[in-house]
């Protein structure tokens, strides 16, 4: 099939359509809304079968999604940022139900301050929930990732909900050429959902999501969920191999780009990794042995596969498009935890925070992060974490602040009053 130009959002809608989803609980939020509008249009026009219901909140949307999956239909839903946080109670809850369905998250920075553009604090806030996570770097991966996500979620040895993440604006609203799998091939790859015994029917009464009394049964179910999530690394690898055989695209657990003889490797997730890929090529042109390692599967955390890919690498520049306040980058922390104590682990894991709220990461910044990491390898000293911000940016902010201050001085009634009272506020 020839490639079509699709935004990440429309690609996500196509993923759901090709997965022949039965049920779509929905709620609007930028930058995700185009997904549900596209699906709604197809349903209204008879291009697609299924049922879409707009709930009154994401909390309810996730409840309905989990409940429908627990009843035995194939469910798709999508959200972003504040919506994901609003639903957070149910994100944990439906994962605990072992309700298999797919939720697309279109990454967007979290309030406050409120913003629309992308970073990964939203999706990473869900990292401990039991939802598995697939992270996409381009629009093609969005379609492919959703089809694979259903296979993973519905695998009887896994049975967990899966989140497929794409970055707001950078992917959601960016048109890229996408090869849509042929519907027949997609349904061969993804057969209908078989809920097995876990469903609701009058002739087979079931109690789902019941309470437990005490720590022992609680631990039992929590461990079960954890072990199922861990099994998903192997299951995902098998699905990726099959996907490659069928569709010819590599969708492995990690993307290791020019890592083989690399001395320094960028480590990051999402669409900005395509910028890193470009930087790798430029740095290679300049004679530096640099690579990129990008996990597609972040939950379960594929520690062994990541460690293998980093064997022989001296330094890793971990680029976190998220910030755990008072701690630092989440990817950095997790990579340290995964590599600690492994004999062949890289000596330097340098931490960089960047791209928050859609802030650009410029090519020069990639070159500099590589240089800082190379330098650290040479000296054997890990640099302190860096928050990417240029002097120009700071100057721009200061400029805006001064303009706003002048405006306030000229127009504010409080200011006038203060002038009348000689600078003292009236009681």
């Amino acid at each position, binding site marked *: 099939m020839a490639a079509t130009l699709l935004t990440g959002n429309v690609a996500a809608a196509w993923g759901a359509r090709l997965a022949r989803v039965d049920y779509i609980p929905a709620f609007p939020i930028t930058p995700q809304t185009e997904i549900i509008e596209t699906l709604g249009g197809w349903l209204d026009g008879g291009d697609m079968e299924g049922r879409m219901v707009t709930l009154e*909140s994401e909390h309810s949307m996730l*409840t309905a999604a989990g*409940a429908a999956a627990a009843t*035995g239909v194939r469910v798709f839903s999508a959200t972003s940022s504040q919506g994901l946080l609003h639903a957070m109670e149910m994100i944990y809850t439906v994962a605990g139900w072992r309700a298999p369905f797919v939720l697309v998250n279109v990454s967007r920075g979290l309030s406050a301050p409120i913003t629309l553009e992308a970073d990964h604090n939203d999706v990473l806030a869900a990292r401990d929930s039991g939802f598995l996570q697939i992270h996409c770097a381009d629009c093609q991966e969005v379609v492919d990732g959703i089809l694979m996500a259903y296979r993973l979620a519905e695998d009887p040895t896994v049975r967990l909900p899966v989140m497929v993440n794409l970055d707001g604006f950078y992917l959601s609203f960016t048109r890229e050429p996408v090869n849509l799998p042929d519907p027949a091939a997609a349904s061969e790859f993804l057969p209908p959902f078989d809920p097995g015994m876990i469903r609701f029917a*009058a002739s*087979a*009464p079931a*109690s789902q999501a019941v309470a437990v009394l005490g720590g022992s049964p609680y631990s039992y179910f929590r461990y079960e969920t954890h072990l199922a999530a861990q099994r998903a690394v192997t299951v995902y690898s098998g699905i990726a191999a099959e996907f490659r055989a069928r569709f010819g695209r590599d969708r492995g657990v990690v993307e290791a780009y020019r890592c083989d003889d690399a001395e320094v490797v960028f480590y990051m997730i999402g669409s900005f990794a395509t910028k890193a890929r470009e930087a790798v090529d430029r740095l290679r042109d300049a004679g530096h042995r640099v690579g990129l390692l990008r996990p597609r599967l972040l939950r379960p955390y594929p520690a062994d596969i990541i460690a293998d890919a980093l064997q022989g690498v001296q330094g890793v520049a971990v680029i976190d498009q998220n910030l755990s306040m008072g701690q630092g980058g989440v990817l950095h922390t997790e990579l340290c935890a995964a590599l600690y104590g492994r004999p062949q682990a890289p000596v330097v894991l340098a931490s960089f925070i960047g791209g928050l709220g859609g802030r650009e990461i410029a090519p020069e910044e990639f070159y500099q992060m590589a240089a800082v990491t190379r330098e650290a390898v040479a000296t054997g000293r890990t640099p302190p974490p860096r928050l990417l911000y240029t002097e120009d940016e700071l100057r721009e902010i200061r400029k805006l602040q001064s303009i706003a201050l002048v405006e306030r001085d000229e127009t504010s009634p409080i200011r006038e009053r203060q002038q009348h009272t000689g600078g003292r506020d009236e009681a």
Partner: protein
Amino acid sequence: MSDIIRRMKDLPSTHLLGTGTPMCSGCGALEALHQIYDVLGEKTVFVNAAGCMTLLSAYPFTPFRGSWLYTAMASAPAGAQGVRDALDILLQQGRLPSADDLQVVVLTGDGSAYGMGMSATSGALDRDLDFIYICYDNEGYGNTGQQYSSATPHGAATATSRGSRGYPGYKKDLFSIWAAHRPSYVATVIGSEPLDLAKKIEKARDMKGPRMIIALSPCPTGWDYDPRDSVEIGKLAVKTGVWPLKEYVNGQVVHTRIPRERPPVQDYLRRQGRFSHLFQAGQEPSLVDDIQQRVDDYWKEVV
């Protein structure tokens, strides 16, 4: 089960809900649920929100012969939406025989129904969801130790209104809020009036669309009285006019029991520790009068 219930002797004689639950003895909510379940039967899936009744199904046991799904405090009606929609999809696709269909029943406390779950309920009503909502109303957050909720009556002492005047607010009129959505059916019931309850549940069972039930649920633990008095306190709630038994159908509110001679509300209040401060020496009588006045005003509108 299709027999029409007219007299006490028509009430179901087989009891479906299992025994041995961890509810308190004398629990008025469990009393109502027993009766409701007998009428609704086992072809049901109960979608529950956090509250006392959550502990009915504790792994690996359940007193229900049918199905159960625990959700969260705020979103049981949304859980019902997901289950109902999924069942409809399965029926439509021929993947579920119609004999396997289920009545979807939300079961929550007042804390959920009057407060945290109200927006989810309103949404379900907007969408004309085909379900039954049972709110067992014990007039407080029972499971967490009976703090006041917006269903707590004026003057009641709760874990968070221990002062001499009790709870300063007034019980929210959930019946009217629900009825304002124009659902298929809204009714108030109480376990101590089993015939009235069974008639209403039967009527609800055989309708489509949103069918909303509020069951006042005397709660010995939260209301502070001897468990053996539950039925009597329930009867007094109706007789004194504190708990009107009524239903909303086709845009009309009809009272199914109009107490002609109402004993004073203090007959009801005095039986419960949560109101004892209203009768202590030195307490101004205005609180009891105020409660009486409001009940009188209510019935003045009715008759």
